[in-house]
């Protein structure tokens, strides 16, 4: 029941937002997302209560018949992994809404309505425990972001967003084929997650199913060589769209690996793991090198995002508890950091009108407060100890080391390369002499300061005191590991 309310708040808010106008829409969306966040905190406390009696279980999950033939249930619930993603989504949404204040946007009501609709679909993806329902939400999440990017995007948006749409939809349709395949090949003829993890299909077919699902997720995450839509889309989408895409939407892919791939086709996964990890590492190194050579701020962050998620995917495919747990923790950390860096990029581009890092410089002198927030976020993304990414990345490295020490070496390389391009970028953009293009740099507005301060606090809070998150994901990592273990 509680999960249903989590799902309904954004949907209702999205419908109401259509009928409001102007600044009011932004305030309304902010209030709605904060209510949602507050409610999430309440659900978290319910979830944490030690007694897992029937009452609590019924509070969190809901399973009603939806379609009789083929058998599809409206089956939603929360476990540690879902709750983590719901927390991430609901934590970021108020920040993303807040980022739009003090900006002139056309047809605000439609934009915010689409954002809230996307919020609804994202929550739906994370709480669905029936494959078909999950698929519907997965597709539904694509439509609002497509229109946000198409209507409010930058140059060349029509071509770029079309590529993005077709690419991801192609992956989804392959996944649909996978689901139909699973439905008729399991004895239970049901797509409920629990049933799918219990009744595995014969190992000869698992490899095929693995690729059907993996392609969909590899496009969404994205893992090289399926990434070509991503840098263009990130740089042409409006800032809030980029924040949604990079902060939350790509987590859909990573989350789905853990939920719908590893436990359902463990033998197929085990068979292809080495190839996938190799792909991830090639991608990580490739993306890092491009990021080092990159001069466009937004594209640089886009490639850095490919590198970071590549590492997470590799850690997940190491198939051990540390890797899975590290992946989960890092998803939360990366979501927060990537939203932070893209927002900083937007503030710079918005004020100077330039996204070329060679034409920037010396912003620190003009706006020391912005420089402070930016360096915190940069250090957070290069995984300095005491910041949030450190814990996740450490556990990922540990998991990869356990899988293969060479793999850990490669993974370590990515951390070093990450520091290289992030710090080089910071040096060129913020430090040094004031570039002639940057003569005035307006100080931070209240909403910008609020967003950046919140992100900075979150970076330190999870870095210094990660215990609640680790406790949240520990049992579910164990469970996923047990379900996907084959020997």
């Amino acid at each position: 029941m509680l999960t249903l309310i989590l799902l309904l708040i954004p949907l209702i808010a999205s419908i109401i937002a259509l009928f409001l106008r102007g600044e009011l829409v932004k305030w309304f969306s902010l209030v709605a997302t904060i209510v949602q966040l507050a409610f999430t905190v309440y659900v978290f406390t319910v979830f944490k209560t030690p007694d897992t009696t029937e009452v609590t279980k019924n509070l969190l999950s809901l399973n009603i018949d939806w379609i009789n033939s083929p058998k599809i249930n409206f089956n939603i619930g929360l476990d540690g992994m879902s709750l983590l993603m719901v927390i991430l989504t609901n934590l970021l949404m108020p920040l993303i809404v807040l980022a739009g204040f003090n900006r002139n946007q056309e047809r605000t009501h439609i934009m915010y309505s689409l954002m809230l609709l996307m919020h609804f679909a994202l929550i739906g993806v994370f709480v669905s425990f029936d494959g078909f329902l999950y698929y519907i939400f997965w597709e539904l999440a694509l439509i609002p972001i497509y229109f946000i990017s198409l209507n409010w995007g930058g140059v060349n948006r029509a071509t770029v967003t079309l590529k993005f749409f077709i690419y991801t939809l192609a992956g989804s349709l392959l996944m649909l084929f996978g689901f139909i395949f699973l439905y008729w090949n399991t004895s239970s003829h049901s797509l409920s997650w629990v049933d799918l993890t219990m009744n595995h299909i014969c190992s000869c077919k698992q490899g095929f199913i693995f690729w059907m699902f993996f392609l969909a997720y590899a496009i969404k995450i994205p893992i090289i060589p399926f990434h070509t839509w991503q840098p263009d889309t990130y740089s042409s989408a409006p800032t809030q769209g980029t924040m949604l895409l990079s902060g939350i939407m790509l987590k859909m892919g990573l989350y789905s690996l853990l939920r719908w791939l590893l436990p359902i086709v463990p033998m197929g996964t085990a068979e292809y793991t080495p190839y996938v990890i190799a792909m991830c590492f090639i991608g990580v190194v490739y993306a890092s090198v491009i990021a080092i050579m990159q001069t466009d701020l937004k594209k640089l962050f886009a490639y850095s995002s490919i590198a970071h998620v590549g590492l997470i995917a590799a850690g997940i495919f190491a198939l051990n508890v540390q890797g899975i747990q590290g992946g989960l923790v890092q998803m939360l950390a990366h979501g927060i950091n990537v939203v932070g860096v893209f927002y900083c990029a937007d503030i710079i581009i918005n004020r100077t009108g330039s996204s070329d890092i060679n034409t920037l410089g010396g912003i620190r002198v003009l706006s020391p407060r912005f420089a402070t927030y930016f360096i915190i976020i940069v250090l957070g993304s290069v995984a300095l100890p005491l910041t949030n990414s450190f814990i996740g990345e450490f556990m990922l490295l540990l998991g990869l080391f356990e899988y293969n020490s060479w793999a850990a070496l490669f993974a370590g390389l990515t951390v070093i390369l990450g520091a290289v391009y992030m710090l080089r970028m910071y040096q060129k953009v913020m430090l040094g002499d004031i570039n002639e293009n940057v003569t005035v740099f307006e100080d931070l507005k209240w909403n910008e300061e609020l967003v950046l301060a919140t992100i900075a606090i979150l970076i330190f809070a999870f870095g210094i005191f990660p215990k609640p998150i680790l406790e949240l994901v520990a049992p579910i990592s164990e469970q996923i590991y047990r379900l996907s273990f084959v020997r």
Partner: protein
Amino acid sequence: MNTLIYTACLGLFGLLAEIFNLRKYLIPILVLGLAVIFSLNLQTWNNPQTHFNGMLSDSNFSTAFSGLALFIMLIILILSGDFYTSTDDEKHISDYMAILMFTLCGALMMFSFSNMAMLFLGIETLSISLYVMAGSRRFELKSNEAGFKYFLMGSFASAFLLFGIALVFGVTGTFSIDGIGNYMRMHADKLDPLFIVGMLLMIFAMLFKVSAAPFHFWAPDVYEGAPSLITALMSTLVKIAAFAAFYRLLSSCFVFALGKAEIILTISCAATLLVGNLVALVQDNFKRLLAYSGISHAGYMMLAIISIQGSTDSALFLYSVGYAVASLAAFAIAITVFKATGTESISGFNGLAKKNPLLAASLTMAMLSLAGIPPFAGFFGKYFIFSEAFRNGWQNMVFVAIISSIIGVFYYMKVIVAMYSKPANEFEIKPTFAYQMVIAVCLIISIVLGLYPCVFTKLL
């Protein structure tokens, strides 16, 4: 049966309206009449009966499809009020309406035939009415071409059908589908070659009528040349009627003999899917685009035909409903835009989102439904048909269909991109009240069915 008789009466009334000078009230009366017939039709539900010495038989299958056909015709009639506005049209309105009613009669016969004669009669009634309607814009060259082309090609197909019926009659000695079905069951292991040839000829004729590749070449030209409203009728009612008749014919007469035709049906299905989707990619004319999209949808419906052994009639019906409502909404919007801009090219839709955001959003929904994206009925219909085909062992065909769906998304998005990101043209575009209602009703049905399809999944 009553449905058929009353519809024919409405057609006669349409002809007489000319004499009694009722032209002005004709459309409202016909709409009312069809609404009454629609409710009468529901009475035959779960009440199977045969009529006229076994010429026609009501079943849930025929009731469901008749209901859909009546609904489509109702929508077409409502749209026709604001479509036929020129003086030449007004002179002929009663003829047009009467012919539309007879088209519907043909469709109704095709849903409930239980004798080959009735099948042929139904198809001919439907087709001849359409030849006339396709050419009804007398002073337009393209309309003439459409009518003539459709007539010539359609006559060939009818001849094939007739020859097939004759051969099957020669072997079995009966026109009744039960008799032919019995013959097929008794001789399933050793069928007469003439029977097989007859079946194949009938299958070719039906493939022509549903515009499946490689018998699809007439469709784009005819769809483009015919008046837009008639194109809407052809791509919804006629296609669905042809598929229902095809399904009924195969499932009652030839289901055990299909092993011989399997390879033909499979190749045709794959070719239809790929040709329809690939050729649609390069179309600039919106009606042609919808024609090729219609061909590709015929391909998806062919999946239900090739997996006919698993009784896929519910899947076919659900798909037909989803396809019909989305197409009707798309055509209603397209007719409005054609009228305002005077062009049928996709560029007419440029910048529609800025001028009339609601209309653009509606067309977006219709396009997404046709492309098979949730939460619209088109998605669930597609899923259901894929799932049924998969269950009956057609994994490879489902895979082909998935690939062609991916291709299909391109051209549906082309329209959406034109509406949202191209600069606007100067025309004022506003649909009339009737069109607004039709668009709203169709899209609401599409969304409701997409969210709650169980109404139809276990229907038949």
